[in-house]
């Protein structure tokens, strides 16, 4: 019984997604904390800007997206840290599927626990900032895609910086500039929806971003993980 059985990529991905979901469910605070962070920062804005609902609703798209971006950054900072420390990352690299595929289950699980959750809750936060409820579909749709792109980009940065001391700040420096197009397209879609314009162009661009990100980012993430395993 020395021969390892041939493995099926789909089966492998499913089992790894389950692994990461179990881990996330075992420590739910990691999932809840970014949401609480999101809520806290949303609360800070009216306190800093004044409670005028009209002014808040003008700024709401920008606020929501910047905060989503920051909470995404927080998630990316934790992304590979534990796995590098306990050796899971090197075992991932030993898997007989391409590493660029092997990293996807973790990203999927992370996105389900962060991006998806945040997007679904976001209309609530939008209401707090005076956004009308009828832009909620655009808000949710743009965040669903935006968080996915940001997670993919952030994972590239995370893979490159996990092995480094004080990688957190460095990560922010590396990936925040790359988030710019997502931020622009995301806020644009919301602003269009708010002012009776057509948000589909911006949403379509976000969709293109998800596709492009899914195609290219895993290659960069895999290369980055190999670099971090070198240390």
């Amino acid at each position, binding site marked *: *019984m*020395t*021969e*390892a*059985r041939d*493995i099926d990529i789909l*089966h*492998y991905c499913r*089992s*790894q997604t*389950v*692994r990461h979901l*179990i*881990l996330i469910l*075992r*420590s739910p605070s990691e999932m809840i904390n970014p949401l609480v962070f999101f809520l806290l920062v949303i609360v800070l804005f009216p306190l800093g800007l004044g409670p005028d609902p009209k002014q808040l609703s003008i700024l709401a798209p920008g606020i929501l997206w910047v905060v989503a971006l920051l909470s995404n950054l927080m998630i990316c900072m934790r992304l590979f840290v534990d*796995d590098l*420390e*306990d*050796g*899971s*990352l*090197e*075992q*991932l*690299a*030993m*898997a*007989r*599927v391409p590493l660029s595929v*092997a990293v996807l289950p973790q990203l999927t699980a992370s996105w389900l626990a962060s991006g998806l959750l945040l997007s679904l809750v976001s209309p609530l936060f939008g209401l707090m900032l005076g956004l009308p409820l009828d832009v909620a579909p655009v808000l949710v749709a743009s965040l669903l895609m935006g968080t996915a792109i940001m997670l993919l980009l952030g994972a590239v940065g995370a893979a490159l910086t996990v092995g480094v001391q004080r990688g957190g700040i460095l990560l922010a420096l590396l990936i925040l500039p790359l988030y710019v197009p997502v931020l622009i397209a995301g806020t644009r879609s919301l602003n269009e929806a708010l002012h009776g314009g057509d948000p589909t162009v911006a949403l379509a661009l976000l969709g293109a971003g998800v596709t492009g990100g899914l195609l290219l980012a895993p290659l960069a993430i895999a290369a980055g993980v*190999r*670099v971090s*395993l*070198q240390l």
Partner: protein
Amino acid sequence: MTTALLEARDLSIHKGLRQLLKDVTLCIEPGDLWQLAGGNGIGKTSLLRSFARLASIEVYGDLSRCDDVLYIGHSAALKGAMTPRQNLKYHPSGLCTPTDTEIDEALAAVGLAGYENALTARLSAGQKRRVALARLFLPSGRLWLLDEPFTALDVAGVAVLEQRFQAHAQAGGAVVFTSHQSAELGGLLSVLDLEQFRGD
């Protein structure tokens, strides 16, 4: 066409500006048991990792090996929040897709029967090591690359492992491991002293 599981020719391993090892030439055939020996810092782990292709950036030279490799490093890739059974079932190396009975048998073989559903975080260091080594009792790769497999094991554990190594070699597999202590592996064991490959 060779039957070798791993062939290294003139492998040199660097770390930054320093050359750790040079001209490492080694052929590992089915049935081999190799111990990588040498003092601290000579590069045992680095060589093992280069065999595993985990350290590809600073490795120069030819290396060909079979795909069917199991590697266990210093850190065991165990999650404290999962049970030993889950740790083995959803192991990130994904070398095999073991059934629950296979997992239970493997855990029993390393003396962890009854701990299948305990949280791994609650186990002792030696028990955690056993969970990691339980992978050797699952259908798992022809070439084993093991970094210090005997650490944190008691005498009985070491004996179980040595028996397993021999069985694996007889079944046509091969084991490469690093260790400071000498293992009781009968006539099968070859020792590779890395001192002869020390870099400049």
